[in-house]
């Protein structure tokens, strides 16, 4: 612990010294904060770009990845400390994205040396942006039902089919896809492979999806006779399901993190709204029932953050408990709870879609409230999570659903 404590001091000092002041307190705004990079990136904020460069130079964009691929070669505990210190002052990580959060860890575990050398440095430097091709119109919660076909033709795979919920496919350079390489396999979990696809390959079209909240980063991605070199398969052909599950594990951890925000921030946010809309700049919030609801939210938020801290402490001493399995469920429900109460306190002033007659803060909040309905669906619905906890943690017998 002595060494880690010393490293914590070092990390804190470096982050506070180097993170541009304009970025302090900006983290926690949503899942797509920070610098996502890629060849289509039009980011112009000089501080965000400087923070990216400093992070790359310090090798702290992927602190725990091997040095040979541009990582920092640090331990998982040290990486966590770095991230905590950034979170503590509310600055985003220097480079963000699904390459860092999801694909990278999987390539490190399952990828070939050539794949690692080809893809990891670009991810570390924020030069190549990745998106995820998982869900399909008929493969949501039942992901293993996916149908996008990949047929061998010589040393290439030919892809035909459709992916959906491909976040930011329109801004990404590459997509990692789950494809069906063997449709005659006896179980649907068999015959699935993971393949890396360059989105500029002919035959790919991307269409944006609007949500109930309006604009969204989600897309549909269509594949028509798309030729991909066979060496882009990750791991063994037809054995991609295990890899898919590993990626989903990283995704849930990442969703849990992004939902967590700053301790106490949900309560602060709703109290501020209540004060503004109920005309009570200070003192007790005049409606005791709303105050009770807000306190319930605040207490649950605190218990959730304490639980995240406990999970982390258990992991640091090498005895991870089973609580990690519930963070996605609780975090997403907490987010919805926060927006629901925030909408209640706004009353009719929360009904604006756009234009005059409404406070811009309320217009944005209302969109966020609508968007929050997806949080218990995306990344594994709460119901699917409960099935998993029930089976793996509580040891309840598998049954008819």
């Amino acid at each position, binding site marked *: 612990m002595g060494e880690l404590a010393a490293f914590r001091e070092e990390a804190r000092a470096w982050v506070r010294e180097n993170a541009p002041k304009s970025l302090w307190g900006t983290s926690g705004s949503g899942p797509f904060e920070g610098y996502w990079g890629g060849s289509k990136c039009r980011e112009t904020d000089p501080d965000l770009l400087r923070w990216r460069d400093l992070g790359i130079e310090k090798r702290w964009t992927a602190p725990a990845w091997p040095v040979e691929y541009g990582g920092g070669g640090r331990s998982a505990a040290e990486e966590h400390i770095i991230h905590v210190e950034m979170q503590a002052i509310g600055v985003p990580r220097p480079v963000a994205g699904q390459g860092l959060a999801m694909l990278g860890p999987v390539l490190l575990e399952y990828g070939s040396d050539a794949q690692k050398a080809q893809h990891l440095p670009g991810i570390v430097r924020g030069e190549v942006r990745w998106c995820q091709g998982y869900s399909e119109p008929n493969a949501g919660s039942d992901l293993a039902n996916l149908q996008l076909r990949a047929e061998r033709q010589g040393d290439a795979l030919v892809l035909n089919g459709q992916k959906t919920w491909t976040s930011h496919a329109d801004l990404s350079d590459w997509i990692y896809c789950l494809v069906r390489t063997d449709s005659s396999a006896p179980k649907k979990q068999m015959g699935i492979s993971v393949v890396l696809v360059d989105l500029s390959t002919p035959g790919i079209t991307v269409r944006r999806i609007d949500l109930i909240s309006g604009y969204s980063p989600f897309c549909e991605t269509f594949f028509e006779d798309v030729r991909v070199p066979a060496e882009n398969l990750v791991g063994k052909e037809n054995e991609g399901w295990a890899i898919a599950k590993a990626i989903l594990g990283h995704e849930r951890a990442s969703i849990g993190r992004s939902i967590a925000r700053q301790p*106490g921030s949900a309560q602060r946010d709703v109290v501020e709204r209540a004060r503004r809309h109920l005309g009570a700049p200070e003192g007790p919030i005049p409606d005791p029932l709303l105050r009770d609801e807000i306190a*319930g939210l605040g*207490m*649950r938020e605190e218990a959730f953050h304490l639980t995240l801290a406990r999970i982390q402490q258990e992991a640091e001493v090498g005895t991870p408990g089973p609580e990690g399995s519930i963070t996605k469920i609780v975090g997403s429900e907490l987010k919805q709870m926060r927006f629901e109460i925030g909408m209640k306190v706004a009353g009719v002033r929360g009904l604006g879609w756009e234009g005059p007659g409404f406070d811009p803060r309320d217009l944005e909040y209302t969109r966020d409230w609508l968007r929050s309905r997806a949080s218990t669906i995306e990344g594994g619905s709460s119901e699917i999570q*409960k099935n998993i906890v029930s089976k793996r943690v509580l040891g*309840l017998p598998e049954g008819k*659903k």
Partner: protein
Amino acid sequence: MTGHRAPHLLLSDEQKMLAKTARELIAARAAIGRLRSFRDSKDEVGFSRELWAEMAELGWLGLQIPVDHGGLGLGFFDLCVLLEQSGRALMPEPFSSTLLLGAQVFLLGGSEAQKDAWLPGIAAGEKLVSLGLPEEGIGSQVSAAANGRGFALTGEVADVLDAHVADAIVVPALAPGDRKTLFLVDRRETGVRLTRQHRIDGRNAAIVHLDRVRIGGDAIVGPRHDAGPLLDEVLDRARIGSAAQMLGAAEQAFDDTLAYIKTREQFGAPIGSFQALQHRAVSVFTELALTRSAVLAAARAVDEAPDDVARLASLANGVASETFMLAAKVAIQMHGGIGVTDEHDIGFFIKRAQADYVSLGNPSQHRRRWAKLHGY
């Protein structure tokens, strides 16, 4: 977490060992079915004095009492480790009265003479102390009239835990000039009368009647003028200790329920294979995980972050009350018909859950306090 640093929430190896030893001894010696026997035989004591003495010998009753007062000199956190285990068996032994309410009054507000007189006896299991809590709103009140150099106490306090066997009872009373003061009343004093109460939850309690009970000025515990802050501090510790007991009890109810639904068969399958039950079980598991974090943080705050105790006491007690009640209700529902029979032990949990829910502040009172402490 008002600051960015989360409290340390893990048990040390010694604390894990304490939890394990306590769990084993309690499982072997304190079956929940005892509550039924005590109730049906109208047992005069209502708990096992032998078991209490045995726990004293193991050092458990003096975990948090300083070494020079006969204890082990550990922290409140350690006491909560023990309390969680006692909660698993819904033990009716006088943990709440003597170790939480009683001992904390002396630890926080006692004079050296009072500490010398009471703490070693508490640690040795030889002395029992309780605290009477006049209920807000009902108007039960004790008054302390000046009487020579001392006072004469008159009034009545009900629901005083273990008062039927306590050697002394701490009673908040209004002294001349409307000053709230804590008085230590010896049960043997003339004018003290006790009426045993029989409750649903298996804990023992009595009404304390005081009729011009004459006591000296040295029977005051803590400040003479305003005992309010001291009482709040004592109650916050009791809230946290009680939350630890509730956590243990809720875990036990859940463990028993999980074991039951894995074996009970209907429609040719264990009922635990039905998704309707599985999802409810996960909900209880989720609340237990959140509650455990709150209880650990609150217990740690008593030892390490005194400024955060009030807030975390309300968090822990409020959350634990809701979780225990949920676990107790789900336990009965999943046990089905057998769950509502007196023959089965699972029904004892909801009785204790209700008692704990309304004691030391109910969850809505804790939410109100939480809001106030956060400035809204």
